[in-house]
Structures are given as structure tokens and as C-alpha cells.
């Protein structure tokens, strides 16, 4: 059974991204209306809007949370050619005794000359580090040398990939490989008819202390819209999910005793054509065992790895029907609480087969 909450996002234009914090307790949304909103879940499970501010002077493409060990910090990137770091500040409590919260801009990263298309914090073991990519194909690394001081974000590295970049993802840590180098995969949505590679892998070199492009993945030639490494729970290799003209999962396996060249073998672990059209988003679950893909067919499909194979375990379909009237009423009566409930019946768990 699935219980659904519907939240009116109150954005005045298209929502581009919804991001959850480490625990799934806080939600940040961003939109073409240039606003970023933060929602918090209360003890009853209702989601309340706790902050809303104009963050940029253009569409806000992506929003992402830093690890909570660094505090309550988010980063945004926008069509206005900037990326920004925001920190939540608690002020004095008001007369009701609740602390007043607001978000302040700690840094404005203005190095890009074109729209910044993606922004992601690195794994916490690398420190407080941030990567951005932009429409002119430059991947940038920023780092806060003192994690307790969010005002300082010097630009550390720039890697020019020369093709419009749409998305990026950091590698997680591997179980068996001795501390791997930091690695970022960048995707390009260049829509030309060339068969150029659309995925680039950049690595940090400990010796030269520089980031550099070390590999282009030849097997993906269609525009790439989203990409994400699977969280690693004891695997000795990486799984990279890709949203392109289909859903693709690449496996990057470290080469033992690699002395020169790119130290991984790359092979396709799975490919799903079920959307029959462009795929826009991919997302892993917490353990990296279920992948959600969103395509032009208006469906979200869930894929689970079983023994040696991947299979579809669920499909979420859109349906323009209105929810039951009584839930409408709850919405209108409670002004602050915009959460709505509706029941969706018996669903989604692959094994929920009924008999007898």
C-alpha cells in the first residue's frame, strides 16, 4: 500500500528540481520563478513551508543539500550564470517561542560566463567541496578550506570539456579499493547529430594536484540529461545511471595494478528502452538497489537489480483526475498546512500478489 501526500509547491512557474536533505526530513524546491523554497516535515508527517526567497535573477535549475555535518547548507545554480551557497540562520525566537529561521547567501560563485546547469557537493570525506558545470562546457571545483567558514569558496580547478554540459555526479567511496581518487562524471546534452561522446570522466590527480578529463565514454552518443552514481554499500565497483535516449547503467570496475591510463574498465550493466523516448531524470534509492527513471512518456519507472538482471518493479503513471473531494476541503481550511492526503490503494510493491 502506498500513502501519498500532495503538497502545493506554490511556485509561480515550473519546478525544476526537488532535493531532500540527508535524512529526507527537509525538502528544497527551485523554479523558473527564481525562488527557492524549503519545506520541513513536522512530527505528524505534514510538510510545512519554512522559507521562500528569491535566490537568483533567472531560472533556478538545481538545488542540492550539503551533508548535515557541515550545517544546514544548500547550493543552487541558475540561468543567471551563477551558483550560490546558502546557510540557514536561526534568529531570536518570536513571541510564540519558535525560532525564526532564514537563509543567507554565504557565497556567490560568478566564474561561469553561461548558464550554470548543475551543482553538487562532493562526498563528505573530501571535505566541503562543490562542483558545478555550465552550458559552455566548463566543470569547476570550489572548496571551502575551512568547513566552519562558509564565506570562503575559492575556485580551485577548472576543466574545459568544450561541449555544453547538463549534469554531473561525484563518485561514492568504494569498499575494496584503497581510497579512490575523487572522480566526477559530466554529461552533455549537445543536440547535434555527431556521434561524439556525451559523457566525460574527470579525475583528481594526487601527484599533479589537478583535476583533468581522463576518459570519454564512447558508448553513449545521444544527449545526456541526467546522471548519477549509485550509493555504494559494499560494492567494489561503481554503477553509473544515465538518462539519455534510454536508461543506461554503466559499470566502472577498477583495474587492479593499473599503472597508466584510465584505471577503470567500463561496461554496460543494463539498458532499458521501456520509456520508448527521451529519459530526463534518474535517481537511486538509499542503498543503490532501486533506480527511478523519468521519461517523456509521462511515467516514472522503478528498476531493481535481482540476481544478474535488472527488472522493472513498478510504474508510476500520471493521471489528471482530481483527488477525492474531502481532501480538497482539508486544503482550503488549513491555510498554513498545504499537505493533502489521498489513498492510492494497493500498489507498487512488486511482491504484493494476492491470493486465496
Amino acid at each position, binding site marked *: 500500500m502506498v500513502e501519498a501526500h500532495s503538497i502545493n509547491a506554490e511556485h*509561480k512557474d515550473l519546478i525544476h528540481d526537488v532535493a531532500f536533505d540527508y535524512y529526507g526530513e527537509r525538502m528544497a524546491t527551485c523554479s523558473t520563478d527564481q525562488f527557492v523554497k524549503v519545506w520541513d516535515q513536522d512530527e505528524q508527517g505534514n510538510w510545512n513551508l519554512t522559507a521562500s526567497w528569491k535566490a537568483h535573477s533567472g*531560472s533556478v535549475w538545481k538545488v542540492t543539500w550539503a551533508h548535515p555535518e*557541515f550545517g544546514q547548507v544548500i547550493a543552487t545554480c541558475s540561468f543567471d550564470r551563477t551558483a550560490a551557497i546558502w546557510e540557514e540562520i536561526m534568529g531570536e525566537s518570536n513571541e510564540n517561542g519558535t525560532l525564526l529561521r532564514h537563509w543567507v547567501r554565504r557565497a556567490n560563485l560568478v566564474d561561469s560566463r553561461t548558464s550554470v546547469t548543475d551543482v553538487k557537493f562532493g562526498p563528505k570525506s573530501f571535505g566541503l567541496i562543490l562542483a558545478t558545470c555550465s552550458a559552455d562546457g566548463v566543470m569547476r571545483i570550489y572548496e571551502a578550506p575551512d568547513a566552519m567558514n562558509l564565506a570562503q569558496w575559492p575556485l580551485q580547478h577548472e576543466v574545459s570539456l568544450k561541449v555544453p554540459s547538463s549534469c554531473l555526479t561525484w563518485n561514492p567511496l568504494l569498499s575494496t579499493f584503497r581510497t579512490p581518487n575523487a572522480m566526477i562524471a559530466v554529461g552533455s546534452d549537445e543536440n547535434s547529430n555527431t556521434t561524439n561522446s556525451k559523457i566525460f570522466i574527470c579525475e583528481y590527480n594526487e601527484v599533479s594536484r589537478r583535476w583533468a578529463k581522463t576518459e570519454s565514454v564512447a558508448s553513449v552518443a545521444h544527449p545526456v540529461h541526467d546522471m548519477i552514481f549509485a550509493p555504494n554499500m559494499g560494492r567494489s565497483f561503481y554503477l553509473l545511471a544515465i538518462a539519455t535516449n534510454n536508461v543506461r547503467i554503466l559499470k566502472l570496475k577498477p583495474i587492479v595494478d593499473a599503472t597508466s591510463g584510465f584505471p577503470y574498465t567500463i561496461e554496460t550493466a543494463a539498458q532499458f528502452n521501456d520509456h520508448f523516448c527521451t529519459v530526463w531524470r534518474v535517481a537511486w534509492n538509499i542503498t543503490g538497489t532501486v533506480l527511478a527513471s*523519468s521519461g517523456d512518456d509521462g511515467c516514472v519507472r522503478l528498476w531493481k537489480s535481482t540476481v544478474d538482471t535488472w527488472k522493472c518493479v513498478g510504474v508510476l503513471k500520471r493521471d489528471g483526475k482530481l483527488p477525492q473531494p474531502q481532501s480538497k476541503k482539508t486544503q482550503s481550511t488549513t491555510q498554513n498546512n498545504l499537505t493533502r492526503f489521498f489513498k492510492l490503494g494497493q500498489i507498487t510493491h512488486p511482491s504484493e500478489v494476492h491470493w486465496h
Partner: protein
Amino acid sequence: MSKTIVYDTLSIPDPSFIDDEVRMFGSSFGMSNICIFPTKISGPSNNQNSSGDDKTERNIILLKHKTMLFDPKVRQLVNESSGVFQELQTNVDDPTKSTDALYYSRKYRAILSTCILAIDQNNLDKSNEIYNQYKMLLYNLQLIWHLCEVLYLVTVPGDTILNNLLDWIKIHYENAENQASVITENKIAYLTDEHVEEKFTFYWDTVIGLVLQGNIDTARMLLSNHSQSDTEPFIHAIRIFKSMPIYSIYGGLPIAEYTSRFKGWQSSAKSKLECGIFLSDSNLNDVMKIICGDPDSTSLIRSHCSTWFQFLVAQLIYTDPTVKKHSLSLYAHRSVAKYYEESEYNHMDTLALDLFDGDLEGFVKKLKSYPDSGWSSTHLTNLLHLCDKIEPEVDMSEVVENTNPNEQYLLDYGTFLMTHHSLWQAGVIYLDYCSAIGKGHLSMLLSKLEITSDLRVSKILHYATARRLHNVVSSVCKVKGMLSLQKSRIGEALCWAIRGQDSAFATHLGDLYLKEFAKSGSFGCPDILDNLGSIVVTCDRFMFIGKYIQFLKLSMDNKLNEAALLYIELLKSNICPKYFRMTLLMDVLMFIDNSNECYFNIADMSLITMRLDDAIIEYNEDDESDNQFLLSQVLNIRQGIAKLVSISLRKKKTIM
């Protein structure tokens, strides 16, 4: 053949998605939830025309998966079985303890029965559709588990399995027996000479039901309650019932002899049936047909059985009462074929068939998709593994290499429990038995648990500490510390830094304390600073703060001699942070009083002067405005030193 559902489709009824151009984007969040939101795909060119009066509703939809095991009434199943599971695992490792698989199997089944009872008590009028469903799921599970126990865990000498199968059927299909007791306990009918068979419309159904469960004695009792029981046909029937040879493993007849006796008994009954003795009562005639193993009675038996395995056992009683375990497979397939007109097996049927076929591996595999979120497959598979009834799966997943295939189901179930806000502690138990990869999962899942309540945080820390997951401890403490810091509760943050042994974070907090002191002249949270504990050893900043507080106390108590020693020590070790040096040097003025006592020797005083000179150079190098006040104090400090020198010179003179 079997109906397998590959996946389910869920429609999202929301007006946000009504527009065909709208795309639905999905992502996972938290432990196992899914979020979907509507958006459109637009090129970067047309995204700037944001019209302010857009009234379109844009709803973000959050989906939470709810399963049976998360229901408050079913939770006891999870918690109690985790206890049995743990007991079993520890006993397996301990050679002095017995690990009787049957004992544990019964324990698990007892938990199931209690759970079913609990559900029943909360759903007395059976109006709660969900509970009805849960009950059905658990009931079926109990049935199949019991069958597995009867066929594989109970040892039967000579492999004559029928009596065990009858026990199994009797427990799970108790309708006939219940009805029989209703009839026999009804004394009024007996006394008033009423016709029992007319009063109770289910009389004959009950007799047949009992006969089909081999419950001959009760059936005979019912027959003697019949109004016609003193007529010829009934007297014959009751006599046949009475003389039916019962097979018993212990102290009974050898199989061969029993078989010949059974055949003799049945053929004498058959001859009476063929003579038409029972024809006067058609119901009685039907019952006798069943007893004689007459092939014509098949459809009658079928109509009295709600499942094919009931049908199977019923037939065996009167056709092959000494059936061996290995021939069950053949009979089972025949029964299924006869029972179903079309071959439409459901999950339960295939599970039972696998058991009769002796295909435990196949059974275990199919049990995985039983809709109980893995409860049965985890516990039963584990039990069967431990008593060596099944070999571990050979085809292991490539995705999760480095894992013992035996552990995969424990890993899945443990991870699943960890996603629930109150069952996570049970989940930990299962992950504990998954060697290295379980530890990886545990460390990730523990640190992802929400840390809303302090009680839960201390539980998480307790579990993490016991498993030496220090990374979890330090991570949780750091997050809690940062949350305290966000609320400007520095003392609370410091407690978390101390708990997490996080010296970098402690240094930052120490700086906040010292800067506050430099400004206001006093420390906040004195009680925490008095009890710093081991952080003093691991964090330089707090080593300094500890010593400095000690110094302040000594000078406050006018123990200036000791204070002076400590003061010089502080200056010598040079652990004082840069921004605090001037404040520390100003404290030299404390040693000038009217007593004309000098607490420093010449070497000490030159050290103080040297540190002062260093500090001035440093302060001039970085020109921060808030240093101006301290720089203005330089003159005061120098005067103080001069005074001290003069005192000491005068002293020396008097001594000389």
C-alpha cells in the same frame, strides 16, 4: 502456468499532471520514499518569461510505502521473531546448546498464531478489510510453514507420512470438528427425540468433513446421534467405522500386516456397499462410498475440500494410508490436476507443490515473493539453512559480490526493517549476522536514521559504539553539534564534540569561547568547562582553556605564587591561540599588587617581554580593526612589566 505479477502500476491522480506537456520527474528520498513532481522541458531560450499571475497548481507528491509488517498489530510479529532468530543464531554457534529445528519452527509458528489472534481481537466484526487481508496472508503462511515442518523437520520412522499430514490438515481446517461439537453438545435434540439431521442442516456435511480428515471416532459418534441410528444400515455403518484399523507408528502393526488388514476391512465394507445395505439413506451411502475408496466418490470429496491439498490428504486416507513421503509428489500432481478444471495455480499452490515435490530450493525461492516483505522467507530460509536442509544458492548476484549468498536475504530483510522508524532496532539484529557487507549497510543506515529525539540519538550511538562503528558516532555527534551551534547553543555543541571525540570541531568551539571571553571577560557555560574530560588531551585548544581557567581560579583565590607558575607555563608552551595572546599578556597586570611581592624571576620576565614583542609583530601583520583596543594596552603591559622588574630588583637588593 503460474500467475506472476512482474510489477504494479500506480496512477497518480493529481491535477498538476493534466497537461500533456507536463513531465513527471521522480526521485527517492529518505529511507524508502518516492517523490514526484511535475515539470516541463524547456530550452534555455524561453525560460525568462515568468508571468507573475500564473495560477497553475503545482503539486509535489510524496509516496510512502506501507506494508503489513509496519502495522502496529503486526509489529509484534517482527519484534518477537527477531528474538527467536537471535536465540537460534547464538545457539548454532554454541556447541553445548541444542539447535532443534523443529523446536524453533514451532516457536516461529506460535508467534504467527499469536499475531493472527491479535489481529482477530482488533477486528472482531471483520469489518476492517485490511485486517481481513492480513489475517488471510498470515493464515496461509502458517499453513504452508506447517506443511514444510511436517514434511521436512519432523522425523517419521518408515516415512509413513499420512498421520502427520492429517494433523496438519486438522489444525488448519477445523470447521468440521467445530460443527461436530455443536451437534454433539446439543443435549436438547438428544433428550427431546428431535431429529438431529433435520435440526442441523450441516449434519451430513460435518460427517463427510470428519471422514475426510480421518476423524472416524467423532464421525461414528455423530452417526449414533442420528434419528435412524438403530436401523440396519446405521448399525452396519457404525460397526464398519468401529472396526477400521488405525495405523500407528509406535507399537502398532508392521506396515505389511496393517496393509492387509486395511484391505480386508475395506473389502468387507465394499461388499456391504455393493449389496445395497446403505441405499435407504443416500447420504450414508455416499459416506460409505468414500470409506470404500470408491472412484465415484471423487467429485463428492472434491466438493467438500476447499483446497487441493485437503483433497489430496482426504483421498489418501482411503486409498493409500501408508503412503511414503517420496510418492507424495505423484499423488500431489494428480490431485491438483483433478481438483482444478483449468490449470490456474496461484502462488500458494505452487509453494505447496514444491514442498510435496521435495524441491525445497524452489520453494525457498518462491517464498521470497510472498507479500510479507520477506518475513517468512528470511526466517524459514535461515532455519532450513541452519539445519542443513538446503544448500545456499549458487547463482549469486553480481551486483553484490563479496557477499555470502546465505546472507542476501538477511541483508534485504534487515535493510527493510531499518527503514522503519520504530522497527530499525530489530533490523540491526539481522544485519549483525551479515559479516562485512552487513556492517557497511549498518553504518550507512544507522547514520541515516533521523535524529529528531535525544532518546533515539542515544540509542543510535549505543548501537554504533557496540559495533565499533566510530564513523557513525562521530558523524551523528557532529550533525547534532552543528544543529546546536545553529541555535547558538555553544555549550550543547561542545557536549556533542566531546561525545564524538571531534577535536577539530572542539577547536572551533573553543575559539568561540575564547573570543567571547576576550570581549566580555567571562566564560559562558562554566559547568561544562569545569568538566571537560578527555577532550583536554585530544584538543590543544581545550588544553589551553583548561589551564587558563585554572589560572584564573588561582589568581581569584589569591594564590598568586601558583598562578605565576602556571602563567609562565602557558607562555612557555605557546599553545595560546594567536588572537588571544594579547589578552593573556594583559593578565600580567594581575601580579602587581600593593604587597610588593614579585612572583617572577628575571628569565620569566624576559619570556613575557619576548612574547609581547612577538604578539605586537603578529598583530601589526594582519590589520584587523578589533585588535586596536588590545594594541592600545601594550603600553599598560610594558609599564606592568617595568614595575615587576623594579620590584624584583628592590627585593634582590634587600636580600643582598
